[in-house]
């Protein structure tokens, strides 16, 4: 349940920004993370709904920017986007590949406030 730690950190960041920017309510926020970073958006939303009750972020909509899984194929000499992670190039079926994207750390990108 790392989603709980993540949501608590988000709420702390919002408190910090609320002091600096003097807003009273967050309407929505944009969060990004890699698809392979083991974060479940539904669990994140569920945790957020419970934890944000009574805070400035209560009722805010969460918008996710989920970075795709990308492998680099050394035979094709290019990056390929995958639906599901596998250590194989979907185009040439070669296995000389390296993970190039999809484990980006979770970030808070933007908040929309009143």
């Amino acid at each position: 349940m790392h989603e709980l730690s993540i949501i608590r950190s988000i709420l702390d960041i919002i408190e910090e920004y609320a002091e600096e920017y003097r807003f009273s309510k967050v309407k929505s926020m944009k969060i990004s993370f890699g698809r392979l970073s083991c974060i479940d958006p539904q669990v994140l939303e569920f945790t957020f709904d419970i934890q944000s009750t009574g805070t400035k972020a209560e009722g805010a909509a969460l918008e996710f920017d989920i970075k795709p899984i990308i492998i680099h194929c050394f035979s094709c000499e290019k990056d390929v986007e995958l639906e599901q992670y596998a250590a194989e190039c979907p185009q040439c079926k070669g296995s000389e590949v390296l993970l190039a994207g999809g484990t980006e750390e979770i970030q808070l990108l933007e908040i929309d406030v009143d």
Partner: protein
Amino acid sequence: MSKITVVKNILDANDRIAEENRKIFDKEKIYVLNLMSSPGAGKTSIVERTITALQGKYKIGVIEGDIQGSADAERIAKLGVPVVQINTGGACHIDGNMIREALPGLDLTQTDLLIAENVGNLVCPAEFKIGENVKVMVLSTPEGSDKPAKYPLMFQQSEAMIINKIDLLPYVDFDMAKAKKDALTLNRNLKIFEVSCKTSAGLKDWFDWLSGRIESFRSK
């Protein structure tokens, strides 16, 4: 209504605490190992074997992270090394703050190597820094060779992987070549050890590698 651009790593607060821990460890010249795996892969056995092999050379302290109970800490205490048990009370990983709170329980001036045994979990511990020098994961053969593909982050974040329970290879469907290849695809610099805590096979390579790391840290 207005938009505020933030662009902030959400786990920054934890990272900052981890950095503060790191400063304390650097000051006392303590090499910190964050050991991670799923439950039952053999972390505590590896800790026990590592202590027995290296305690003549280094002063070792251990932090045991578990959701509850102190069974692992009791195993470690039998070896005569200081051990602090962290009970996360449900949290599936140890984080920087839990380590910070555990530190007063150890005599840092009498520690060369601090081993933090994380909560058994292949997902969350990979994300939370604690101020370690090295992240090492354990994968055991009964878990299956599909784990790198299923839990990529852990394999990508670790510097070394210990494949434990190789004595069980004749009895389990573990494809060693596939496990290693898939893990190296995620992390081409991953150092891999094939060991058995039961038979002691391969453990010496792990001890030598860890000693080498500690030595180069201490000589800095």
